[in-house]
């Protein structure tokens, strides 16, 4: 096993307050970077706008899941109790959406929830157990009390990255190897 030649993954800059990272995000957005991200221990309100991130698409996955769930429920009950083996119970109709509603409702929520979670994982490319950023010791505080910006080497404007991050007032700037 020979050591592979290291490749630069990106440039990581550390900030110490929520306001500072907000400011840095606006700078990076205005500088026109494409492949970059902000890392914070908690979601900061307004950061999506500061970064220019579009609205999340998770809702569509929920809708697809919920829709499937509801009609699975209705269809299943219709099939079982009216179509495949009709059996009169309690003087009730063989099928009506009324008595099928509770179960269909629960399935709507069940599949809607799975849809939501699957959607979130797909959109976030998770699980992703390997990430070059994990090799950086400082980055461990991204889940504690520090705020980071990472501009990837793959970004067309990567050559301007260090300058932009310095201008944004980064406390520490380090290169991350892949």
């Amino acid at each position, binding site marked *: 096993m020979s050591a592979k030649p290291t490749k630069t993954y990106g440039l990581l800059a550390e900030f110490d307050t929520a306001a500072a990272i907000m400011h840095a995000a606006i700078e990076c957005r205005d500088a026109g970077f494409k492949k970059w991200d902000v890392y914070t221990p908690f979601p900061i309100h307004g950061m999506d706008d500061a970064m220019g991130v579009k609205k999340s698409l998770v809702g569509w996955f929920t809708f697809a899941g919920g829709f499937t769930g509801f009609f699975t429920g209705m269809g299943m009950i219709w099939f079982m109790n009216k179509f495949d083996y009709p059996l009169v119970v309690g003087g009730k109709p063989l099928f009506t959406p*009324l008595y099928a509603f509770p179960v269909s409702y629960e399935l709507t929520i069940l599949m809607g929830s799975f849809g939501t979670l699957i959607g979130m994982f797909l959109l976030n490319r998770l699980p992703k157990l390997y990430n070059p950023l994990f090799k950086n010791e400082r980055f461990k505080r991204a889940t504690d009390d520090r705020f980071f910006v990472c501009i990837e080497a793959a970004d067309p404007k990567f050559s301007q990255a260090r300058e932009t991050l310095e201008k944004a007032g980064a406390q520490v700037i380090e290169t991350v190897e892949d």
Partner: protein
Amino acid sequence: MNHAFLILKRWMALLACAGILSFAGSRIEAADEAAKTPAAETAATTAATPAAGDAGHAAANVPGHGHGGEAKHVSFAEQFGYSYLTAYMFCLSLCMGSLFLVIVHHLFDAGWSASIRRVTEQLSSLLFPWMLVLLIPILVLQKQIYPWLSLDPAQDHSLAVKVVLFNPTAFNLFLIALVGSWGAIAHSFRRWSLAQDKDGKVEWTRKSRVLAAAGIFYFAFSLTLGCFYLMKSLQHQFFSTMYGVYYFAGSVWTTLATVYVLIMVLSRPGMPLEKVVFKRQQQDVGVLFFAFTVFYAYIHFSQYFLIWNAAMPEETFWYVRREYGSWKWVGFTILFGHFFIPFLLMLNQDIKRKLFLMFPMAAWAWLMHYVDMTFNVMPVLHPEGLHVSILDPLLWFGMTGFLAVMFWRNFNSAAPYPLRDPRFAEAVTHHEIPAAGGAASHH
């Protein structure tokens, strides 16, 4: 469970017999009546079908079961009374919904709603004197409106058991006392709030909180009694523990639609609330409006669903009548118009700030609540199906129009928002809502 199941089956059979007996009885009586001169008697008074033994209980409770559809001669006084009652119940909804919003504001020590509280304070203050004055025609026409008032309790089991509350004296006294006391509570909140405008003392807030604490209990029980007297007793044999909550849910729903429109109109440039209504208030009222859309649907679905499943004639007759002829379509209108359309339309978060959708939505809510009130009241008078009289819109628009003028007069007679409310600062100097959809604006 076998044993219990057997007993249930027997009981069901008994009920079925009772239902058949009652059905037969009502046919005979209807035939008798057809022979008589057309008496100014409403359909429900044909209820008292005496039957013997155990079945008698069930039978006496099943008025109009299976005999919708016979158009009766309806006098002008009756039509006026019913149309008036429908409009009155609609307006009472707005006042009581507003009173509820004032009470919960104090109860929850809410911040955001402080800047729009004067609107609900003024709306609920219409309870006195106007809702009390407007009650008079109902009291005058009570014999024409409420069939049970013409019944002999000795002949009617379901009236006999509750004659303590359901006799003419109690009916009149309680109604006046209820509307009067609601007015007194609403006026206390408004008076204390106005006093705070002048001196800014905390004691007014404290007093309001104490009244809100006691008031919420009084509100819950008295509103239930009020809507039992005014609306449910039209078919006094019907019983449902949910009914009070049902009227309450629809009332708050309509009120929130109204409040939404009022605060958005009143905060336009040059209007009195211009500087105190933010996106936050708009969004929150919109979200509550949405929440009550769901809450109402939940309540009404539960009531219907449980009655449908248990299928006991003592209860089902109420819905059976409302599923006869064109009333069925009114029911579907409520299902779709009161729930599905508003629900799907307002599901998206950002919609609650889109006036071009929310204003028609609020107008639609008014219509739907009116349809809901009609669904409760009118099948008693017109069992054959939906019958729209010219008196319906006339009285509805007349009453709401009159109250709107009175509201506007009151609103302009005082400060448009609680100037020195301790939570006012929080309502107007707060971040815009953290829009989870990413719509935060802070540049």
